[in-house]
């Protein structure tokens, strides 16, 4: 009998484990508050812009609380879906410009009038189009970012590199010089390239004339990462990574952020976003002393076509108002405050490209950040299908790169299966 009780208790414990699921919800304090979801980037990189926007908003709406909830890129969409299902969406949400299409197509955002928002006539066209679906505006451009090579001037000098490379061939030769000079240290990379950084790999693909996927005349999408141009580019990419990089081949550029091993002297260069420059000194990031900055420089990644740059991914973020938000008008006013010239200037100075061309020259005289603006002269963007987010979420490009770089699959085989998967996901009914 004792045993039976024991069994019953044990079973109940097991069932409880089966049944337990994590749930989260945003607590709504009162009607007089506005809930904002923005990414942690703002918290780490430009808290001043948030503070300025909140101050301006509260001047306009005294007594209304601003509830800023910082989100992480890994989980924000899951949380947003859960909030939509529970009718508990925030009043403002930040999404990446490659994520908006899925949500606009599904009707997750309320439509907006561009003329109600500051600088809307000079918005970056790339960001504006990521907010437009069937001719209507569903979100407001927030900021964009370009990538460039961040490097160690002292190491380049010691390796005998006198002038910055202006072609890919020269760049690769310089990388080999660096490996020769410093490569005995087993932790050193001439160019630190996390294997799953698909933004970098796609930059190579685009430079050699390939694309991730294309839309055909009948409207259907087709994965084209196995095209001859893409296969050639990825073969070059693979040989480059194996020669110049000792970064993990199974991790992406956020694990760890390259700025951290960069600050520890483990590399001569990496391909990074503008905000990764200040992150080298951020106490939570690289935590390098300010004097380290003298050794740092940046330049756009040179193309295999002499005199050009490799196209950079024009990433960015937008701010939308969910269709089920409770305080849409307050949300719109907060967005107006946050995307006004004052906050956008702070955001740009933190290493980003502001949402308006009016602020294009904010960093022109900053030797650290000007190269990123120059790099954005040539750019690429992800396929504009509403299902693209599902391709990103399936991590199939990251897994393709790991398979290629660890020699688990040939470039041809890995790209072929990735293209097939992309075609399936992009054409799925949503």
């Amino acid at each position, binding site marked *: 009998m004792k*045993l039976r009780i024991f069994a019953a208790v*044990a079973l109940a414990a097991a069932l409880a484990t089966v049944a337990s699921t994590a749930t989260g919800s945003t607590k709504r304090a009162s009607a007089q508050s506005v809930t904002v979801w923005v990414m942690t980037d703002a918290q780490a990189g430009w808290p001043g812009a948030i503070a300025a926007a909140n101050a301006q908003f509260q001047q306009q709406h005294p007594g209304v609380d601003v509830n800023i909830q910082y989100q992480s890129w*890994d989980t924000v969409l*899951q949380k947003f*879906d859960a909030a939509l299902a529970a009718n508990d969406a925030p009043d403002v949400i930040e999404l990446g410009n490659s994520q908006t299409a899925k949500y606009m197509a599904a009707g997750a955002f309320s439509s907006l009038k561009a003329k109600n928002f500051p600088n809307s006539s000079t918005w970056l066209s790339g960001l504006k189009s990521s907010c437009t679906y069937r001719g209507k505006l569903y979100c407001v451009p927030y900021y964009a970012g370009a990538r460039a090579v961040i490097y160690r001037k002292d190491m380049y000098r010691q390796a005998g590199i006198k002038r910055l490379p202006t072609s890919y061939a020269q760049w690769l030769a310089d990388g080999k010089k660096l490996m020769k000079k410093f490569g005995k240290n087993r932790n050193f990379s001439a160019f630190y390239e996390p294997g799953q950084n698909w933004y970098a790999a796609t930059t190579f693909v685009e430079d050699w004339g390939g694309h991730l996927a294309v839309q055909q005349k009948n409207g259907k999408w087709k994965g084209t990462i196995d095209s001859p141009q893409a296969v050639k580019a990825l073969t070059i990419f693979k040989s480059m990574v194996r020669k110049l990089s000792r970064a993990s081949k*199974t991790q*992406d550029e956020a694990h760890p952020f390259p700025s951290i091993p960069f600050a520890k002297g483990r590399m001569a260069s990496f391909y990074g976003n503008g905000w990764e420059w200040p992150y080298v000194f951020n106490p939570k990031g690289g935590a390098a002393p300010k004097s380290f900055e003298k050794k740092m420089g940046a330049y756009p990644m040179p193309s295999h076509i002499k005199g050009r740059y490799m196209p950079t991914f024009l990433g960015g973020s937008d701010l939308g108002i969910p269709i089920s938000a409770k305080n849409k008008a307050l949300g719109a006013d907060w967005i107006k405050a946050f995307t006004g010239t004052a906050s956008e200037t702070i955001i740009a100075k933190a290493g980003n490209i502001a949402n308006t061309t009016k602020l294009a020259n904010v960093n022109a005289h900053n030797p650290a950040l000007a190269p990123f603006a120059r790099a954005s002269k040539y750019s690429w963007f992800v396929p504009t299908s509403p299902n693209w987010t599902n391709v990103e979420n399936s991590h199939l490009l990251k897994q393709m790169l790991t398979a290629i770089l660890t020699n688990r699959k040939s470039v041809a085989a890995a790209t072929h299966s990735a293209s097939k998967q992309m075609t399936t996901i992009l054409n799925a009914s949503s």
Partner: protein
Amino acid sequence: MSSRSPAAAAAVPDPRVTSRRPRRPFVTRLRSGAAPYLLILPACLVIGAVLGYPLYFMGHLSLEHYGLFQLIRHQGEWIGLKNYSQILHDGFFWHVVLRTLAFTAAAVSLTMVFGTLIALLLVQLGAKMRILLTAGLIFVWATPVVVAVAVWSWMVDFEFGVANWLLTELHVGNFNHHDWFASTLSGWTIITALVVWGAIPFVTLMVYAGLTQVPKELVEAATTDGASPWRVFRDVTVPLLKPIFVILISLSIIWDFQVFNQIWIILDGQPPPQYFTMSIYAFTTSFQQSQYGLGSAIALVMVVILLIVSFVYIREMVKIGDAE
């Protein structure tokens, strides 16, 4: 059930005899009859609310096409058994099922073997060491999974991990920048070690509690008769502890079959397909591909498989309970 013997049939009281008994007042009868049901009612209500309703809802969802569009409108699209036919014809799904079963078998056997060995060690130890070891086990058991995984993932970190540093310092080989997850086998070894490590304390303490109840006379008698320690363990200890082993194995199967957190966190929330178990497959389908209907179908198939796998053990457990 064997057919009843005539003697057993005769033992059934004659209904007429019963009816001639003086009747107890109705209320008393009701009260005594209803009491057990009343007592069990709260538990049933709780189980119904936290388990029954979600299961029902999931079953309903698995018969619908339910994507982001439907989620925003709170209105699914009925498609019958299409989700099920899709997964049953999907080679990858069966691959994941087999992988999950293989992982469960490996993790459960390792947990049971090491758990039992450590329990046997505990019996042999002196008081001080036993307290020390028990405390260590309790600490492992009390560590939240998320914390434990974070610690492990730092230990095997590619760039800054202590495992690579230590193995290189000990001249085991050049483990500088060794990537533990580059090969699927080595990655699964880490994950299995992590899961087994977390599960051992419970098994050890249970088996140890059982071992202290094994009558000394039995062991002494067997030893006097010339039985080796292994023989004593096999023929005296194991049969006596069988009920405990059966329960521990069935619980371990349930836990390891649905392992999720360890794999999810150590692979940064983006496990590649070769690390998919059924729970991860169901989760990514639902929450990353926004195919909630399909995800529910996978989860329900998982529940059914789990029921089949653990049925044998649960039946065994019920049998043991009845025998007492």
